[in-house]
């Protein structure tokens, strides 16, 4: 039976290409919300800890999780553990935590679709013929939840977020605002981290 958890049109606009992983993450997020008995998060009260890493195609799942739960990157409600696993823990401070992971048999069955023949050649999802993409997406929609996900309650899971800061200072070097936690002092004047030269500039990691 086809799942009821199909991403809305705006979700595909946001993610900007059709692939099977965004809808899988979306479904995982919707199921986790229902499991914990909470609504989509408007503000800053729900956390998602995906276990994915980077540079593997399944990371698109995390866009589905943002879309479904409202625990977005910009609100900093989502942090990766970099385990390279196809799983995530969903946490509400009052309702507790649940972990969803993708079953190996599901991954193996999905990997046989033509979509991955293209992806393994390095072809980006938006360049793959739409019928090839929609074939695997529809197959995912048609799988029952229990064929896709392992679900584990996490009664001992704890996470304490740091309280937010609103105080900021103008950098005496570049004149731009910096939040106080990140202000450094140089020659007696407050400066931002890049103007201070104290910490090496972040590299673009790929």
């Amino acid at each position, binding site marked *: 039976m086809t799942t009821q958890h199909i991403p809305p049109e705006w979700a595909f606009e946001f993610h900007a290409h059709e692939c099977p992983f965004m809808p899988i993450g979306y479904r995982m997020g919707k199921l986790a919300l229902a499991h914990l008995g909470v609504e989509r998060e408007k503000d800053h009260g729900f956390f998602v800890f995906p276990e994915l890493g980077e540079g593997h195609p399944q990371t*698109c799942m995390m866009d589905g999780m943002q879309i479904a739960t409202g625990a977005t990157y910009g609100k900093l409600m989502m942090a990766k553990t970099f385990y390279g696993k196809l799983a995530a823990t969903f946490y509400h401070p009052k309702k507790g935590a649940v972990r969803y992971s993708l079953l190996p048999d599901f991954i193996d069955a999905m990997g046989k679709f033509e979509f991955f023949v293209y992806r393994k050649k390095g072809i980006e999802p938006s360049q793959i013929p739409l019928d090839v993409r929609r074939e695997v997406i529809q197959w995912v929609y048609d799988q029952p939840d229990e064929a896709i996900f392992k679900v584990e309650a996490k009664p001992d899971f704890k996470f304490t977020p740091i309280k937010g800061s609103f105080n900021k200072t103008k950098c005496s070097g570049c004149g731009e605002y910096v939040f106080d936690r990140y202000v450094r002092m140089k020659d007696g004047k407050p400066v931002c981290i890049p103007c201070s030269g104290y910490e090496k500039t972040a590299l673009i990691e790929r």
Partner: protein
Amino acid sequence: MDRNDELYKVGLALHGHKCPAMPLGLRAGLAALDALGVQHAPDGQLTALVEIDRNHCSTCFADGVQVATGCTFGKGNIRSLGYGKFGLTLIDNKTGRSVRVVATPEAMRRNQESEFIQFRKKDIPASQVDVKLVEPLIDKVLSEKTDVLFKVEPIQQAQVPPMAPHAFDTIICAECGEVTVERYARVKRGKIVCIPCAEKA
């Protein structure tokens, strides 16, 4: 641009509450796309470097950047530099052309001095603040001239390391039986395991 714009509607649907920082990120993303003369990224064509870090106000800026540029957390082409600032560097990965767009002190001050932020400082969630206080801030951000909101720096050539090919190989952890991307596999007493299992005694 106003609140009926499709891009703002997608931004609000994703973000979940009305605040001025998400729209500011939308405008920053659009300004950067415009400066580079590129379209938003269906896949990994662009990289966005945002300067926010964790646990400070206005990080919502990054959700606007995701929506406008197509550089999303899931696709892995948005990164935080952790400076606690409101800059966005957008890189065209094909050509290496990049531009930094940063919110002006004036643009930040307007929102900072608003009544809306006084509620936020009292830890009242954005969705609980009267929309009459926040909607004028949003309208101002959406309709304001780009050069009032941002300093758009000259186009530069970024050093973009060649993109590592996507990894498709996975292993099954010998302890928990879960799928793990091969690069993240560890060896524990001769067995191939995932990172959390490797760290257990």
